[in-house]
């Protein structure tokens, strides 16, 4: 599908320390002045808070959390007064953690105080602001989140699934990130100095950066630049340390350049990840030399100016890349005093006017998640017609974990008419990986390792997957909860570095990549109950672009303190687990198939989705397997009416009655459906499947549709 819709940048928006909008950012890049300060965005007292941060001015008012407000401001600027987006992709790691921190410290047991914890709430705030009916994605791959979000947006435009996408990222300062990086001894006491011989670490920052991307610029809307290539990779080396040779980073850059069809020699400027930590800068410099050889393009890190805005960095720096192209400006490596001779690079020391035709921007994150973007001046080549037809994927193998255990144990229970929900028994995932490998890991990464390993082994392939996509609505809650508990108990002094590392949403996916030796793209979606469906869609897009296979998995881990406060699903009865799939292009071999059909806002648009899915044949499916999250239980009567109208003679089976309630249970339902279409009957209520075709429908705030057939 490459060569379809293009990704013109027709709007940009930014918020960071020292710049409340793009005009201010342009000024800041032309006349760099760093404004690091001691943190005031969160309660910061005592000796441990005496480290500078890159804090955004304002955004203190009550109401929406800080990340949401910063995101909204930058997004509004990117969208401007032109046409509204039809899809949104947001990269974030902090979401509403500031409000969760306050609630946990106050010992609140009121779920309303935790309502912004879900990362999806940031994207939903944007979707509400811009009336977006179409898909709304949240990508959470630590510090590469926003760059990965832009790559997802580009794939959507190429495939013709969207025409106008708002993509970028946002993160706010928080105690979790500030003290987490402090405990990892990665924070510079005197502010970061990327590439400096005396660099001692990063400066934690906050901000947002968004691109408004259009496949074909609307009349009168000027294209500032074009996203011409994106590349993702995973180090599969270590949970936090970059590969010392920069192998994964080089892979991401090469993939982005290959995707763009641009030779390294054509790159005018490289916007480095350049955090200022000794290890990152050393590994990145090596990676740059692997990709560009002896003749390096102009390069610099802007983090000495903006600090490290974490999940927002890739978005903010994509905006900076657009400004570099638009103004023919090479941004300076602010904060640098003496270049580290061991790095053997010559960064841009002062803002410099020079012809800038192509920019490569790097973002690397914990979990070894790397993303590179290639942007160019807008090209005039007309876009080819994009096809909105996604490939059908064959399910080469499947794994699931439920309250009853593995696939076999779950099917046995269901066939006996028993409930298969509840907490996954320890024995079902205890042997997820060698003991030494999992000794530091808590429940979610262990569940995911067991799922991934079982599906991977079941597929019979020896080689590592070509693409890895993970969905998790709530991510590693136990790690987050434990980190904050220890921090608060010690009056903000001590907490566990391991728990901080483990608390990022993509930490389990990083462990899966490590276990399988997978250096492929590695995306984690954290989009409430749609996380599995989004991981599935990203795999379909990857396979459409030539990936030979994809490992897709989604799971949740119940956490006794937080889960009941966060998710009404968990408040009723503890339940967790998930499923994993190895997917390959439809090669005609026997077995189940799976296809993503759509995501739309439920209110007012679900009927249109159902009509589209029916394809004019109301008898198309044997069964509609319906999932309604507990938070939206009030929708069910209306939803059932809508489903009955679209599929008049089709039985509707609410699969949560059999599988229990958690945010990734739709993945489990897909796994059971995959077994069912092959066997010719669905174990729920022993429903026969003469057409061997099941519609998996989920109705929450947004609706998703997936079909499973044989």
């Amino acid at each position, binding site marked *: 599908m490459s060569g379809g819709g293009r990704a013109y940048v027709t709007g940009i928006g930014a918020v960071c320390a020292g710049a409340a909008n793009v005009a201010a950012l342009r000024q800041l890049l032309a006349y760099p002045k760093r404004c690091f300060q001691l943190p005031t965005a969160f309660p910061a007292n005592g000796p441990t808070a005496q480290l500078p941060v890159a804090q955004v001015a304002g955004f203190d008012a009550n109401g929406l959390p800080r990340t949401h407000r910063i995101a909204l401001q930058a997004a509004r600027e990117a969208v401007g007064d032109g046409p509204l987006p039809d899809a949104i992709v947001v990269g974030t790691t902090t979401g509403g953690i500031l409000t969760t921190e306050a609630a946990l410290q106050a010992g609140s047991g009121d779920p309303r105080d935790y309502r912004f914890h879900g990362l999806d709430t940031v994207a939903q705030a944007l979707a509400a602001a811009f009336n977006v009916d179409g898909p709304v994605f949240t990508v959470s791959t630590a510090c590469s989140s926003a760059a990965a979000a832009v790559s997802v947006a580009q794939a959507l435009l190429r495939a013709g699934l969207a025409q106008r996408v708002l993509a970028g990222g946002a993160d706010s300062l928080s105690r979790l990130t500030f003290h987490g990086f402090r405990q*990892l*001894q990665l924070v510079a006491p005197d502010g970061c100095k990327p590439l400096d011989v005396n660099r001692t670490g990063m400066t934690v920052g906050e901000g947002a950066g968004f691109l408004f991307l259009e496949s074909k610029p609307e009349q009168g809307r000027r294209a500032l630049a074009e996203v011409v290539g994106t590349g993702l990779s995973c180090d599969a080396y270590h949970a*936090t340390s970059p590969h010392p040779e920069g192998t994964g980073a080089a892979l991401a850059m090469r993939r982005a350049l290959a995707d763009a069809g641009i030779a390294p020699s054509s790159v005018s400027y490289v916007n480095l990840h350049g955090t200022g930590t000794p290890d990152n800068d050393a590994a990145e410099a090596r990676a740059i030399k692997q990709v560009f050889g002896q003749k390096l393009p102009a390069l610099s890190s802007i983090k000495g100016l903006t600090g490290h805005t974490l999940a927002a960095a890739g978005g903010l720096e994509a905006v900076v890349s657009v400004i570099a192209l638009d103004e023919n400006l090479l941004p300076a490596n602010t904060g640098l005093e003496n270049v580290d001779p061991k790095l053997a690079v010559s960064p841009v020391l002062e803002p410099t006017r020079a012809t800038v035709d192509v920019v490569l921007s790097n973002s690397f994150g914990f979990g070894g998640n790397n993303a590179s973007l290639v942007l160019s001046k807008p090209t005039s080549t007309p876009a080819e017609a994009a096809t909105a037809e996604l490939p059908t994927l064959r399910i080469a193998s499947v794994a699931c974990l439920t309250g009853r255990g593995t696939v076999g144990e779950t099917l046995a229970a269901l066939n006996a008419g028993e409930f298969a929900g509840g907490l996954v028994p320890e024995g079902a995932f205890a042997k997820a990986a060698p003991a*030494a490998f999992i*000794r530091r890991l808590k429940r979610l990464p262990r569940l995911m390792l067991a799922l991934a390993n079982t599906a991977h082994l079941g597929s019979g392939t020896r080689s590592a997957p070509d693409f890895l996509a993970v969905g998790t609505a709530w991510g590693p809650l136990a790690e987050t909860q434990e980190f904050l508990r220890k921090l608060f108990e010690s009056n903000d*002094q*001590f907490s*566990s570095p*391991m728990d901080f590392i483990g608390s990022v949403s993509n930490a389990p996916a990083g462990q899966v990549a490590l276990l399988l030796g997978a250096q492929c793209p590695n995306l984690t979606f954290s989009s409430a109950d749609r996380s599995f469906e989004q991981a599935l869609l990203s795999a379909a897009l990857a396979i459409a672009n030539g990936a030979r296979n994809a490992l897709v998995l989604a799971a949740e881990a119940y956490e006794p303190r937080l889960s009941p406060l966060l998710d009404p699903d968990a408040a009723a009865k503890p339940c967790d687990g998930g499923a994993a799939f190895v997917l390959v292009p439809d090669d005609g071999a026997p077995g189940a198939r799976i296809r993503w059909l759509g995501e739309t806002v439920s209110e007012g648009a679900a009927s249109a989705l159902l009509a589209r899915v029916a394809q004019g044949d109301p008898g198309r499916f044997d069964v509609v397997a319906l999932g309604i999250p507990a938070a939206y239980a009030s929708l069910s009567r209306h939803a059932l009416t809508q489903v009955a109208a679209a599929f008049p003679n089709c039985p509707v089976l609410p699969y949560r009655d059999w599988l229990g309630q958690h945010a990734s249970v739709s993945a489990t339902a897909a796994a059971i459906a995959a077994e069912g279409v092959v066997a010719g009957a669905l174990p729920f209520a022993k429903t026969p499947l003469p057409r061997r075709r099941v519609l998996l429908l989920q109705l929450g705030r947004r609706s998703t549709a997936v079909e499973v057939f044989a």
Partner: protein
Amino acid sequence: MTESKDALTAELARKLVETLGLDMAAKAVDPAAPLIGAGLGIDSIDTLELVVMIERDYGVKIDNRAAGVEAFASLNALADYIRQRRPSSPA
């Protein structure tokens, strides 16, 4: 080797195994063997976890690479490092 040092070494061995979730008995940790890069499988994250534990439980900071090399040379070295710097500890 004084008796109190033995006690501290034994205590550290117990905390080491507990903090890092090592699949071994505390007594099995060789007090003279290197803590990092040897048979225990301890990496940089474990080291940071120990740094936090030592500051929290003993009030002793290990905040640069040179200090880390000295402190984590072995369990005995770690006990010495703590004893030399512990606030208000008996000489």
